[in-house]
């Protein structure tokens, strides 16, 4: 399995993580129309290329990460802690 560069733990086998899908924005529940809400729930871009995704490092630091990953080659070009923005420069 590919390695994901966790900003806190360094590169780890992807089996330590859980995939959380494409990073999306939750509409305002008070004003969202059914169509807007269900596009948020069910429709994603599903690119064959670079994708911005959420991964949860469940078997490591238990942080949610925002990862830019190529869905064909599995290269990762960026990974940061979703909440803190930490990129973990220097960790390897």
């Amino acid at each position, binding site marked *: 399995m590919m*390695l994901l560069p966790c900003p806190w733990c360094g590169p780890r086998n992807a089996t330590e993580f859980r995939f959380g899908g494409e990073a999306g924005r939750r509409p305002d529940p008070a004003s969202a129309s059914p169509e807007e*809400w269900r596009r948020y729930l069910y429709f994603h871009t599903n690119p064959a290329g670079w994708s911005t995704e959420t991964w*949860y490092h469940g078997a490591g630091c238990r942080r*949610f990460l925002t990862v830019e990953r190529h869905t064909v080659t599995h290269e990762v070009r960026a990974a940061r802690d*979703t909440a803190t923005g930490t990129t973990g420069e220097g960790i390897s």
Partner: protein
Amino acid sequence: MSILPTTRRTATPTSQRLGHRAGEVIDRSRTVSFTWNGRPLSGHPGDTIASALAAAGERVLSRSYKYHRPRGLLTADYLDPGAFFQVGDEPNVRGAHRLLEAGMAVSSQNTWPSLRFDLKAANGLAGRFLATGFYYKTFIKPEPLWPLYEKVLRTFVHAGAITPDPGAAYYDKRHAHPDVVVAGGGPAGMAAAVAAARAGASVMLVEEDHQLGGHLRWGDGAALARLRALRAQVAAQPGIEVLTDAVVTGRFDDNWIPIVARSLPGITERLVKARAAVLVVAPGLIERPYVFAGNDLPGVMLSTAARRLVNLYAVRPGSRAVVMSANPEGDAAVADLEAAGVEVAAVLDARRQQGVARAHGRGGLRAVETTDGRRIEADLLVTATGWTAPTSLLNQSGDRPVYDQAAARFVPDPDRMPANVLAAGGIVGDGTVDQLVEQADAVGREAARRATGGSAAGTVPGLRPAPHPELFAAGTGGFVDLCEDVSAKDITTAVAEGYDSVELAKRYTTVTMGPTQGKLETVNAVALVAHATGRSIAETGTTTWRPVYAPVTLGALAGRPREPVRYSPMQPWHERHGATPLVAGQWIRPEHYGDPAAEVTAVRTAVGIIDVTPIGKLDLRGPDVAELLNLLYVNKWSKLGVGRVRYGVMCADDGVVLDDGVTGRLGEDHYLMSTTSSGAATVWEWVENWLQTAHPEWQVHVTPVTTAYASINIAGPRSRDLLSRLTDPEDVDLSADAFGYMNVRTGTVAGVADCVLWRIGFTGELSYEIHVPASYGLHAWERLVAEGADLGVRPFGVEAQRILRLEKGHAIVAQDTDGLTQGFSAALDGLIKLDKDDFVGLPELRWQQGRDSHPRLVGLQPLDGTVVPPEASQILRTDGSIAGRVTSSRMSPTLGRAIGLAQIDPELAEVGTRVTVRLPDGRDVAAEVTGLVHVDPEGERQRV
């Protein structure tokens, strides 16, 4: 040198063992006995099964798949399609690789009734009708006969057999993090490993054969000298770990490299999982068979096979030979045969347009027909017609080999290799041993540099593939795939029928799909497809090389069993007291202690205790916990006071019920949340998700404490009496006024400090759930049992709990709901607060309520109270269509009648509606929709 003279194959095989050879790997001082099809034979340590058989004069080692043609040795190595054996209870043993062991019971596969007399060989006569794809074209009508035809087809399976109870075997796994993995331990691999290690890299050198050395092992004196020198360098160089009889089976993302290691003491197979910085691929070359009529006869073999037999195993492969040679290795085979006393009747130099047209014989080679029309008596035909680069690991790294017509083979495309993969030696190109070693030395240094970030990049010299005639098939027929019995004609036929790409031809003929994985066959198949289509080999391209590079046992892949099991601290007590175990996800829990109905009655009339340790528990601290709870639960949490407990349900943003449980407020900023047992991990992640991705500004710290506490529910009218014997009223006052329903306290229980007690009512009785620091769980449990003896305390299991909760109409998430059940279909109407500003799932639940067409969760009672409709029984409308299903049902010991819960369409959900339930046995019973709560609907019993 003792050579036993046999010019013709005789009925009784005679020894073909030669005198001492300089490079031989057998230990003549000892003898190893084994049986071959029940007949006692012997060989020497170092022999493979096949070399021992060849030494004993056995030439027919197996029968082929479709036509049951006799087959002998072809490659005399791991790939040899003629040497697959059953060894004891192990099928498909690679007989030309597996070392002989004393007592082995070796038998040929795919023979009936015997190897020498095989009835299915009659298929050979029918060969013209069994052309490729014949099974697609026949057995079509009459349809009812196909199952019979299929049974017959299955009897042709070409393989060994497994037994239901094979001997014990031990497999394990190992993780490794070498800087460099070198796949292949020939001269290039050894040189690359030494160079990389000298440059400071940690190296794992992996060789598929039993010794390092590759083709040097069966070479001449100079080669053997070189072999000794390289082995000495490897042995002397620190930082190299050598794995022989081991093979790199694949290359996955980021150089995740599985290596299967065999022949380890006490271990059947070990899977080494290496995460290497750099992979050096140095497998050398595989000699390619030549396709011509009769090319599968015993006695037809590759030059490397003949040289292995002669030089490694001191076996004379035949008595009178014809050699077709297109390269120096073929010429060397001539010399080796002559030195072994084999009469070389003719050398056909393919570089001068000489060659084999056909081989003749029955049961073994008798004569060779040349392209210029000569017929030469011979029992051995050796071909040296070219090489295949085993590029599988490179393909898996993203490389796409290109066809080099001048060299007559596919070669790696260096531009398409990722930076962490390099290739060394023969797979790249040809050269003298010095040139191979020089190139590999540079590759090894570069690998170390890339792995360890050392000095500036060096240049890696290339190796040019040497010119070689394009020799694939003579055009006279013959077999392109000996595993699958696919002939050259089959390929041509497939192309003519429209299966004219290499992938379609492969699928239609099954060429390359056998146990040799196409290593011997693919390039010939491509060449035949190219020829048949009129396209070039380069245009035709090759098939995809998929993992695994070499077959690996399921045992090695599985390793030791590693499915985790979780037990509560009270498990020893449960086991001592006859609990029936229930597998509940990772947990093993008591289902009951013998009589679940009596356990229910004990709870309703006296007191029962249940081990509920698997309930998920999260300790939540911080000023914003209430905000979090408000967001995650469908109900309201802002006003929950300290010391209070509340039940809550979580939905996802699609409105589907996710989990439920109670949460108590232990202090101003301190809460304890409980979840379902199966949802513990999910909810923990769910909480973290919303905190980290949606509200990082909230101050909430989450600690999972599921197994930090042992949890016990004490339920029944006497539960207060029982618990009061283990608590101090000064510490925890259990009186109804001081500790009311849906309250939480902390204190000391059974002398154990820091317990959490909450008064809740899943069973509908007065009950307390206590959470005891886990290491005291067994102590607290035993004290409850001891102190409650006179109160009639009784342990109860999951089954009694299910009945108790069903009597109270409490739904179980994922039983009374499913993966699409939204909140209002789970009888949560009173709980869901649509007037909140936000909670997860709010919009969908608002719309669900507005539609009002959703199924409802209702109580259900059959009119005949003695009939319990099994769970999953369907509820039918009068037209027979499905209107719902029974989600839970039991005989209620308390009411003495059947009760249940059901998901049902809204038009039938009104209390009092009569519905029809279809039982699994086909009977219909009438039932009435009721309220959810079957026992004590007012809830008086739990509020005392």
